């Protein structure tokens, strides 16, 4: 499960930090492990032009956030809103039990919630 690609994203997450010009901010909490992530999105003309996230978490949730933020930059909101959990799992390339699944999907949940708010 802890392949080099996931560990690399964990050690050096992409788009980590606050976004100055965010138009949407969404905090997401995983009550199982106590992890808290905050997502910052800058949206122009219904396109996500920039995104970042803040907060500590496990390797799975950090890698998923890092990969997902990579993925959605430059995409229209409607396209991102259609992303399913299978997409995130394919992106991570690992199989997860029901408890760890929540770690993997925390980012998708946060970003979707931000876009729907």
């Amino acid at each position, binding site marked *: 499960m802890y392949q080099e690609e996931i560990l690399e994203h964990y050690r050096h997450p992409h788009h980590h930090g606050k976004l100055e010009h965010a138009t949407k901010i969404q905090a997401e909490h995983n009550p199982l*492990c106590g992890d808290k992530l905050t997502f910052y999105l800058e949206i122009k003309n219904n396109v996500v032009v920039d995104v970042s996230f803040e907060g500590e978490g496990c390797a799975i949730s950090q890698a998923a956030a890092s990969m997902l933020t990579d993925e959605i930059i430059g995409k229209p909101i409607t396209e991102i809103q259609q992303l399913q959990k299978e997409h995130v799992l394919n992106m991570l390339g690992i199989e997860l039990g029901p408890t760890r699944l929540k770690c993997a999907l925390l980012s998708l949940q946060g970003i979707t919630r931000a876009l729907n708010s």
Partner: protein
Amino acid sequence: MIDSHSIRKNIPALANGVAYLDSASTTLKPQTVIDAMNAYYQEFPANVHRGVYHMSERATAAYEHAREQVQHFVNARFPEEIIFTSGTTESLNMAARMCAQSMRKGDSVLLTYFEHHSNIVPWQLIAQEKGVELLYLPVTENGEIDVEAFDRIIKPNTKILAVTHISNASGIVSPLSQLVAKARAHGMRVIVDGAQSAPHMPIDVQALDVDFFACSAHKMLGPTGVGLLYIRKELHDSIEPVVGGGSMIREVSLHSSTWADAPAKFEAGTPNIAGVIGFGAAVSYLHSFGMDAVNAYITQLSKKLYTTLESLPYIHILGSSSHEHQHGIASFIMDGVHPHDVATILDQEHLAVRAGHHCAQPLMKLWGVPATTRASLYIYNTTEDIERLKYALEKVYSIFHRN
């Protein structure tokens, strides 16, 4: 004497080779306990306290026999002081509700930073309803409950001390006799959460001088869904039941009812009969070793656990700095690795540990961590399990810190 190797042969779930280090969450079940419950379902699965036919009489006898087994296990004076519940959570909720009956706005209850959510949230619900105040005993620099702060924290109208016997998140043993003596000196009622202590050490509710004592069967080799609420007999008449229904009444009319005597008064509805029988079988199994032997074995194995973890420079045990009053549980963090990742890699090595906040978020906040990894011991664990833990933790560290 605990012979963990012969105990292991009686635990079917260990046959798959797992190093099970999550007994503070729930213990594995011996075949003896499983057989006792199966016998009920296969041979006499009738309701208790009702039928006059043979099967029901047999079920009633088995159910009441379990009550006596649990009575002796905690050294209660009377069997009717033993109330069967669904577990510690329900027991603590019931005890809180029962104590709240005589509390008024402005009264307060004294808790500690070490409480499980099940000894915090019920009081918050009561606080919302009745305007009761919650007070918390702080933690010393050494990481233990600050007994000296007792007189400073309480108020003239503090009515209840509700305290854990052993912290489920850290394994720290509370200075219970000192706390109870202080509570008694102020005329307070005492509720003890024994979920972690009852499985590990001899419990004597009379010597402890408590009014309520709660524990769960499933943390001491018994089934889930059944627990104990000990209620001191002197309180039985002044407490109103908190759950109404079948079995607990003497007479019911359209607008009022009278209550049966305890224990029935506090056990409404058809109970978890198989679970209670399994609870009885579990305490009887533990009794065959003697709880002094259980305590000595876990104390000795705990020392091995703490010294082994401390031999790894990147592991930090949370809680008490001396481990002198720490028992059966080690909550720790690994440098640079999230507790969930530690637990997942340990699982791949066939070790079961818990990762999370252990239903003790105020304590996690105090420690300044979102979560920990927790290893906990029981009588079927061996030094080999701890060696396997060490080996697996070294592997976790190397995965996250290679190159």
